[in-house]
């Protein structure tokens, strides 16, 4: 299965740093990885093509080529472009000040319309507003029963007239009832239909014309593959929907269909359904969806955090020192403090792609924040000379440091020894070899 994209990009672009410059061939290699990742996420083939071309241009244009970590930079550009394509902040459905706001729900069979209708009605019914549901799915056996039951759970009225009446007729009748009963919102459930089913698509148009909805929502399964584009285009052409509700996001589908549909129709994704319970409907978050499509954990916020706490120049100095094994205990202390500024260690590692295994080892190694406090105390009890050249630390200095930091001579010994080994490991790391994270942390 597909690994984290950022890991793959790191791999693809590793070695670039030693040459110091990203070439067009490097970028092409990276684009191939991105292309595969997006296809794996079910983003439409044609959308992928356009997208990678745009990203490539930006990668070659900006200062990415010379940057410290091209892999991360490329990842960041991809994520930004993806979030941008996915649309800015999503809107909530605004209820009209008078009369029921009508929302028509449409989509393929099995996309989750009936459940989504009940969720949306419950969502709209809050804050002294009242909502109702109209049962216009006369096709699927027991669909009306299902909506009635869900309506009861959601605490909203359901207008139903069985399965014999015409759906457009039911919808018109339900709207009249909703007006009479002064409902603020009416959510109209319709039968699932194939976009190529001429008869049923015509029926949907009739339901729309009968109710003149404020919003038509396309319900889209997050697991949909390449065909999402055909479906969305057909529904857009026939009923001109206003927004998308993405369902089944509690699964592990990457949900690339969302990007495809957004790109080809230009319609915003408004809501995401994230569970079977009726309150598990959320406003849509484009950035989170971008990360999800790329399978990146939350690497974006990690990068942002890192950017906040360290400036570029400092990072470059450090990088050089590590490579030349000139990394001192003073540098180590500063790094430690910077990392701790970003938040608890376990949280940080969780955000890093590919660090799942390291996290487990970390727990096994019992690295806690208290240990980090002790390490800080030991280093702070050293003179500047000792921090720069740990070799000078002899027996009497050790005793003094132990006393000053409130630790033991053994603890001081261990730190000095581990630091020496860590310095070697970090030099390896800088040369592109990935050491075992546990080794790195424990200095073995």
């Amino acid at each position, binding site marked *: *299965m597909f690994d984290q994209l950022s890991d793959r990009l790191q791999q693809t672009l590793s070695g670039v740093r030693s040459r110091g410059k990203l070439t067009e061939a490097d970028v092409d290699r990276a684009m191939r990885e991105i292309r*595969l990742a997006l*296809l*794996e*996420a*079910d983003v*439409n*083939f044609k959308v992928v093509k356009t997208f990678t071309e745009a990203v490539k241009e930006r990668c070659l244009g900006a200062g990415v080529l010379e940057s410290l970590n091209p892999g991360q930079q490329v990842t960041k550009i991809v994520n930004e472009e993806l979030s941008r394509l996915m649309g800015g902040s999503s809107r909530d459905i605004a209820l009209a000040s008078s009369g029921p706001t009508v929302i028509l729900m449409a989509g*393929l*069979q*099995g*996309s*989750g319309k009936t459940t989504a209708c009940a969720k949306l009605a419950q969502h709209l019914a809050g804050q002294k507003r009242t909502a109702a549901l109209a049962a216009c799915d006369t*096709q*699927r*056996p*027991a*669909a009306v*029963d*299902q909506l*009635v*039951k*869900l309506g009861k*759970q959601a605490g909203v009225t359901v207008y139903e007239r069985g399965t014999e009446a015409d759906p457009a007729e039911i919808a018109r009748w339900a709207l009249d009832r909703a007006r009479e009963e002064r409902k603020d919102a009416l959510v109209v459930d319709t039968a699932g239909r*194939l*976009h*190529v089913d001429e008869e049923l698509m015509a029926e949907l148009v009739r339901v729309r014309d009968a109710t003149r909805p404020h919003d038509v929502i396309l319900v889209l*399964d997050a*697991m*949909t*593959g*390449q*065909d*999402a584009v*055909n*479906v969305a285009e057909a529904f857009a052409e026939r009923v001109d929907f206003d927004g998308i509700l993405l369902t*089944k996001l*509690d*699964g*592990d*589908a*990457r949900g*690339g*269909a969302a990007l495809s549909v957004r790109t080809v129709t230009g319609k915003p994704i408004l809501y995401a359904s994230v569970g*079977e319970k009726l309150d598990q409907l959320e406003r849509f978050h484009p950035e989170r969806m971008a990360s999800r499509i790329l399978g990146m954990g939350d690497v974006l916020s990690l990068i942002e955090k890192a950017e906040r706490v360290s400036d570029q120049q400092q990072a470059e100095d450090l990088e050089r020192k590590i490579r030349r094994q000139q990394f001192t205990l003073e540098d180590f202390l500063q790094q430690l403090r910077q990392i701790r500024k970003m938040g608890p260690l376990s949280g940080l590692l969780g955000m890093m792609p590919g660090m799942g295994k390291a996290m487990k080892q970390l727990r096994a190694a019992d690295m806690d924040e208290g240990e980090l406090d002790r390490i800080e105390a030991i280093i702070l009890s050293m003179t500047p000379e000792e921090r720069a050249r740990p070799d000078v630390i002899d027996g009497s200095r050790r005793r003094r440091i132990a006393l000053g930091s409130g630790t033991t001579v053994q603890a001081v010994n261990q730190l000095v020894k581990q630091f020496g080994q860590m310095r070697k490991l970090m030099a390896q790391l800088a040369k592109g070899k990935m050491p075992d994270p546990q080794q790195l942390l424990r200095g073995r």
Partner: protein
Amino acid sequence: MADWRQAFVLGEQVPAPTASAEPDEGHGPGPLRRLRERLGASRRALAAELRASVLDRLEDADWERLEEALILADMGAPATARVVAELEAEVEAGGLSDPAEVRERLVDMLAELGSAGDRRIDVSAKPSVVMVVGVNGTGKTTTIGKLAWVLRNQLDLSVVLAASDTYRAAAVEQLEVWAERAGAEIIRAAPGGDPGAVAYDAIEAAKARGADVVICDTAGRLHTHGNLMEELAKVRRVISKRLEGAPHESLIVIDATTGQNGLRQAQAFSRAAGLTGVALTKLDGTAKGGIALAIADELEIPVKLIGVGEGIDDLRPFEPREFAQALLEE
């Protein structure tokens, strides 16, 4: 109708089919033509791509277009890359020169991908138990209705349906409608009841009445919900405890519009319910269902059934060659 007798492993006592069991005999198009029409309508774009790419000159751009067509069919990047590379290698080695040969070879290769394992459905035991599983909204209940109809009307077997989807609102009512249409019995419990208990009762009922097949509906569940998958494993355990060798079949229903996530679904359900086959539904849309080939190829779970419409007789045995051909046919 398709020859359903070939699609099942039948017990000895099953009588020869009676001609009267064929509902659309004497009118309407033949089964193959009907399937091709249904599949064909949605395959035109792909066929056009392939004609343009394979049947004319074979240049780099053409191979890319072929790759594009297969990816657009949801075959997935790995399977696509392999097929294209193999075909390209064969053409370059000079084994294939005539465009018609290339096309035939492509059909072969696609059919081969979908040819894993025994595609027959084993209902030889009496009673046999068929478990039907899958994520929400793929068409489990509808597929069960159609399968019950085939067993009842094409093979003259008696069928008991176990309404083990006790979770979704009105799922039992939906299955009841299908049971009536198919002429099957249905065993149900109160909503929120234990799905394993319903399966147990259905097997009891089948044994008591000498019924031939029990089809067990289950609630749709996302494969990432550990507790729900554990519940499914438990239903399976209850079935196998009550009846040795059961469930004889465990079918996952996959929606043809599903993308690459279908592989993960099949993997997870295989772990929980020991899958023996795939039923691919909703092939009457424009989705090409290539994910089924990827599942058959990568996980070696045979595709056994395809759904081509909402009618009760819109279920077909899966034929890899026919499927591959329909992919390329106009």
